[in-house]
């Protein structure tokens, strides 16, 4: 599969390019809007939450902390949910291509992943500039985010391909996924600090594989400390199991896939 992907890397690049161009089609500023959206979001959370609402993180006294806390969670969550949401229509959206031409099907999730990652990179880049400007550069601890991102990507892509494949046959899956994502968002400490959650509930929340990942980002940015690797390892294990499931389900269903489109 990896070799086929490498041979068709030009196709992956073209698909990604096409996606970005489609989003910026007939707009003078084109892809600048991507950055503008991201900047606006960061501005809202840092200014509104910190200055206007005077929210405070328990334990971290300064004004900016809570805004940054929300930003870290939201930016990484968006990356996760974008992959999952777009996976649901991954095969449906490219039905014409799949029906008329033969090419490695893995190029489709690959292009989705690359596109979402580029998107995330833009937003994360702006956020890093904000950190630099507010003198909160996390320094060397930032490298800890790389394995976290890899695990998060694995989780999103594995679950996305798994559900996106089944969604071709049963659209219930796509609907269920969008409902699940709403719950999942609130089951992850993104807008609320984990400290305000009562202890018995907290251990239940720890079952969420995204929990150690997002907490990890938060500790990197706010406390300049490396994440809790034990939790991340558990998330990695979940990701590998999901990837195995996605692989076998896709293999089993792919003969019927094109006929169903």
């Amino acid at each position: 599969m990896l070799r086929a992907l490498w041979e068709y890397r030009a196709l992956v690049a073209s698909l990604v390019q096409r996606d970005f161009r489609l989003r910026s089609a007939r707009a003078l500023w084109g892809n600048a809007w991507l950055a503008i959206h991201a900047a606006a979001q960061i501005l809202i959370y840092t200014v509104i939450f910190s200055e206007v609402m005077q929210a405070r993180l328990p334990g971290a006294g300064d004004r900016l902390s809570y805004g940054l806390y929300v930003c870290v969670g939201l930016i990484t969550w968006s990356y996760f949910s974008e992959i999952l949401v777009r996976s649901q229509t991954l095969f449906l959206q490219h039905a014409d291509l799949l029906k008329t031409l033969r090419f490695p099907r893995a190029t489709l999730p690959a292009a989705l992943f690359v596109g979402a990652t580029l998107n995330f990179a833009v937003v994360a880049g702006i956020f890093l500039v904000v950190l630099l400007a507010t003198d909160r550069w996390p320094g060397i601890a930032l490298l800890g985010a790389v394995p976290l991102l890899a695990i998060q990507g694995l989780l999103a892509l594995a679950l996305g391909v798994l559900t996106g494949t089944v969604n071709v046959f049963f659209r219930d899956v796509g609907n269920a996924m969008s409902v699940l994502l709403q719950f999942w968002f609130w089951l992850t400490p993104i807008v609320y600090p984990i400290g305000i959650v009562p202890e018995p509930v907290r251990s239940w929340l720890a079952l969420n594989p995204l929990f150690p990942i997002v907490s990890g980002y938060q500790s990197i940015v706010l406390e300049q400390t490396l994440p809790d690797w034990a939790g991340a390892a558990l998330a990695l294990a979940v990701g590998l199991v999901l990837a195995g499931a996605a692989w076998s389900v896709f293999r089993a269903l792919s003969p019927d896939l094109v006929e169903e489109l």
Partner: protein
Amino acid sequence: MTGGVRVEGVGKRYKRYPRPAERLVEWLTLGRVARHEPLWVLRGVSFEVEPGTAIGVVGANGSGKSTLLKIIKGTIRPSEGRVELAGRIAALELGLGFHADFTGRENLYLGGALLGLRAGEVEELLPEIEAFAEIGRAIDDPVRTYSAGMQLRLAFSLATALRPDVLLIDEALAVGDVYFQQKCVARIRRFRDQGTALLLVSHDPVAVKTFCDRAVLLDRGLLAREGPPDRVLEYYNAMIAKQTADQEIFQAENLGKSRGQTRSGDRRATIEIAELRDDSGPARAFRVGETVGLRIEGRVRLPVEDLTVGFAIRDRLGNDVFGTNTHHLVVAAPPLRAGERFRAEFRFPLNLGPGNYSVTTALHAGPVHLGGSYDWWDNVCVFQVIPGDEPYFVGTCHLPVESRLEAVAGDASPVVSGAAHR
């Protein structure tokens, strides 16, 4: 195998689920419980296309042409059999994954990538593709502003920018104008001469005749004929003519237009159904030599010991062309009790000349109807015989003829030998 395509016993079975939930049942039992109805759209199709030759695939809508093409292209997998294919394959059809909002040039990059070209290769080929497509500055306009012909030009130029080892063409060519068609034809011919195997799916008999060395005819998912394009197309035309005639006769019957039906007999036994069938069901038109089934069903009112069921075929002038009955065919008659039903079947090659005929059926006792006729039904149905792929002939009877024609040396007065019966 270098180049070429070999299709071996290819079949495609779709799964038809009565309700979507049935699929879930199959999944949850890992396929141990089968809830789908198998629907074969292609079965046992085999043929080969040698490098440097062209084959035409013809057939009515729904005969399985597109499915076959998709299997050869590799977008769907055959349920049985296999396709062997060596080298690069290019499929030419409208669309080719073009996106309406992108310019022609941008679409070339994506389309090229879909065909497996690297970005650098597309770059290299671009001037060539542009030159061949001849759409000028429109190359930088969004494809949604293109006509169907312009899209075809671009798609064709891209798909054939590099010589493929196997080229599939699906109808598409008909969209282009005559000038571009000729250009395409020239390029395809050159490819073929250089060793490309060509598969042409078309309803256009002229294209199949001019391009193809051989043709295959698909009929309801089966390979009905394979051979020289002329012969296969003749057979295909006869098939279409047969269907048309079938329709017309059935329609006339439904409108009650079939006149001249007379019925006699003491009705000790009665005919309820008399129907002509080909191998797919009731039919009213047949090709010369096609095997026909005549089915006669009825009921006896009073006990009958030695029932004879007979039929006769008459031409349009009312002359008996052929007739026989179960007595002459030495078919033992079952003793029939009062109220019991019976069914007689006759099967025979319809070696009649083209034209209209009628069927008369009869029930009686003993060898001939003089012994007492139960039910005699004249003109119970009419049918038409249509030329098949046999050599032309006249008359109501099809005799298999062999002939020779030669000059005889050493004789002062030339003599023609052979057959010319008029």
